[in-house]
């Protein structure tokens, strides 16, 4: 075989190999991230809240254990949830806080804030101990989240039994989702409220637009004053009288039991008590309204 023939063969081999090439990664499902920037309202910073019924309410501390849950639409039209950076951020409402969610399909997205509870003991039912991610909460307040809540999540079955009667119920193995410490004054009367609770409704959706491979900031205000506003009417006046009325023993302190018993006023409802929420249930629902979309600064 001639040297030229050998050269031809080698060239042929090189050419045949060079035509092979594995394609690089294609981005058929572009995704990005949203950072929900939470900013305190003046009331969350401790400024007084003047209610329509004449009370002056001070929120002394409002601490949440929460995460952001964002979703968008994939190119083939399916809803797809993003992946929260942290699922258990413990933070005070008085402090600017960032909740990041990754891997949301590019385009319009909605964000909800959910609440998480700290597992207090191992359970066969899947509630595992959550490592606390404390972002600026005083140690004595943070420790409250490692203890059973003052008011646990509960549900009354039709037969009159309660979910909390079950030994492995979440209420028996988890800590609180939020802590509210406040006091209110009116005409020399002071009412104090210091309660940690487990049941909290997720926030109403907050909307943003996700840019592929980028982080988009979306802003919201933590308006703690909305805890004293009707949960179904965002333009309703701020009221505290129903809380004050719950202090049935007139000791100036709203106990968990008093909150669980007291029913909120419901002008349109029937007189059947079961159709009216307790104050505990009302707070659980009103908490979904404290996150108010805000323009970027």
């Amino acid at each position, binding site marked *: *075989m*001639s*040297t030229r023939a*050998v050269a031809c*063969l*080698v060239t*042929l*081999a090189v050419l*045949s*190999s060079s035509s*092979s*090439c*594995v*394609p*690089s*990664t*294609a981005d*058929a499902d*572009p*995704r*990005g*991230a949203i950072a929900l920037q939470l900013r305190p309202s003046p009331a969350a910073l401790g400024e007084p809240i003047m209610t329509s019924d004449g009370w002056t309410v001070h929120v002394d501390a409002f601490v949440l254990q929460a995460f952001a849950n964002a979703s968008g639409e994939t*190119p*083939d*039209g399916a809803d797809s949830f*993003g*992946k929260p*950076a942290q699922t258990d951020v413990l933070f005070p409402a008085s402090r600017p806080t960032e909740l990041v969610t*990754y*891997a949301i399909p590019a385009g319009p997205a909605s964000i909800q804030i959910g609440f998480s509870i700290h597992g207090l003991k191992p359970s066969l039912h899947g509630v595992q101990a959550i490592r606390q991610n404390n972002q600026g909460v005083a140690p004595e307040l943070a420790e409250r989240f490692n203890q059973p809540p003052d008011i646990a999540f509960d549900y009354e079955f039709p037969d009159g039994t309660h979910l909390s009667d079950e030994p492995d119920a979440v209420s028996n193995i988890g800590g609180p989702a939020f802590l509210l410490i406040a006091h209110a004054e009116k005409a020399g009367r002071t009412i104090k409220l210091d309660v940690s609770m487990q049941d909290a409704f997720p926030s109403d959706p907050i909307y943003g637009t996700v840019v*592929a*491979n*980028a*982080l988009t900031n979306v802003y919201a205000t933590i308006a703690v004053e909305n805890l004293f506003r009707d949960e179904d009417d965002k333009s309703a006046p701020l009221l505290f009288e129903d809380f004050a009325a719950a202090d049935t023993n007139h000791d100036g302190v709203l106990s968990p039991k008093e909150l669980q018993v007291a029913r909120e006023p419901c002008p349109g409802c029937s007189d059947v008590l079961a159709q009216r929420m307790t104050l505990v249930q009302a707070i659980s629902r009103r908490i979904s309204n404290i996150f108010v979309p805000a323009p970027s600064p």
Partner: protein
Amino acid sequence: MFVFSSPAEAQSEPAQSEPAQSERAADQGGPDEVKIRGTRAKPNASPTEHKIGREEMKVIPGAFGDPYRAIDMLPGVVPTVSGLPYYYVRGAPPSAVGYFIDEIRVPFLFHFALGPGVIQPALVDEVTLHPAAYPGRYGRYAGAIVAGKTREPPTTLSGEGQLRIYDAGLYVESPFANGRATAGVGGRFSYTAALLSLVTPDTTLAYRDYNARVSYDLSDRWRLSALAIGSYDYAAETRRDPPPEHEEVFFASEFHRLDLRLDRQGENGATTRIATTFGLDRSRLEGSRFAQDFLFGARARHGAPLHRDVDIEVGLDTTIDHISGDLPSLYAVGQQELENTKAFFEPRTDTATGAWVSGSWHPSRGFELTATARADVFTSKGEVGVGPSPRVSMRVPLPTRGGPKIVFLGALGIAPQPPAFAIPIPAVGYSGLPGGIGFGYQKSAGAEIELPWKFTARAVGFHHSYFNLRDFSRTSSDIDLERPVPVPSSPTQAYGAELFVHRKLTEKVGAFLSYTLSRSEIGATETTPKRISPFDRTHVLQIGGAVYLGAGFRTSARFLTYRGWPDQGSDPNALVANDRLRPFFRVDARIEKRWQWQTGYIALVLEALNASASKEVVKRICDPDCRDETIGPIVAPSLGVEGVL
């Protein structure tokens, strides 16, 4: 005229591990000058290995003439799924079985799924399965080694080709420069893409490969050579929804190797090799990232007789893998996914360096004791792991007083391995040695007996245990791409007995029986007790034969059966298997008609893997009525023309 290469070689019989080779060196019309080259047993052989020669590979039914696919006829070898060339060997998962060609590590040897081998059969002289205590020059695999060896460069123009329904392959090699040099080139090209486009125009399936070799004899003792091999596979589907139209890649992979060597044959039988390897691997998987590995390797070994009865070999080898990949935007994936992706694709440089000394003592005919001391050092992303690997193996003829020859076989070895992905995929590996070095502890003993009519029988009992290996069975039947850190310790073990009765298939009538009785178990961890491996097959039986019918016709067939998969019910981590799924069996068949042509031949070959079209039951689903979930039938028919020059 007979010319012996060296006195050392002349005194030895054709070694069991390296058969003698004769070549007709003179012109056809002139006086015959026949060179016989023989080599004595050297430490590169392991006394308990299985070796399959070039001619026998071709007639093994269902192997399609592919040298490396032929090993599945051997005992101890269990396919993950029938027909797929990913094997468990004595319980070692596919990631723990190393494949080499001329000591060059290659990531895989077969094209996608049922595809043919990536090395041209014409280039391969023999393939050896080392199930335990493999030779010192191999390392970094906790399970078995499958080692191929290329043919000596030819002294005349030679070639071999196949033209089949779905692909064509050719390898041609010729001497030049007055016989001092040779050059060969070949490759395989599939036209599956064109064929598939007639049936399913949106599906693309393509593969091709190339092999090339040049050698130059600098002198009677020194040879410079280069071997290049490469392979490419691509499987994708065109999708129009959602727009825009795009190709969704299921699997794309390629690898390239260029090996440059300098060999020396000493007068006393000594051999020396200094070599460097350059390589490029690329892969892309469905839904995953693009990965790339530029690799460089260097190795040197020197073997020499230390004494009339003792050979010794020392060596050193190192590989450097520069791995990179397309990392996703940190905003486009979750943090855990990002960390997991980094574990595979983060740019890094991995190294592995090993040194060994191996001695072979052969005081009498047929007696061979090989001892090896080897150690490897692995580095990745600042992590360092050390893997000592002592091994000993032996063949000891037993006194039988005129009866049949019986040889005792024994092997003991420790084999370390860095973390490896469950299936060997080019450029996909773990960063930072997560979980540490894995180890295989290999123990086997048995006997080989010569039977009448050129039959041999080998029976071996084995117990292999593995620690820290990544395996399908550890995470049930699901392949968890995103779990880079293995379960701590991850012990698994396999034990059993192998029987191999064999008469060469190249004889006028050849036959084999291969049977493995074994059990594979996944060991206990802190949270789970011991349980059976999903890939435990308990019984694997093959019976095959080949017959020369005359007039150029040769036919061969093989019957394979193995016990069904463990039925683990709805819980993949079930501690006790409910039962066994249905056993699997298949029949492979091959028939060829040869026409002699000059010094070679042309053959028409009809062959089928799983001619019985059997389905393999892989799962039983009960909701609440039970039904079996099957794979297949995986049938691979082949009609082709084979030519040898």
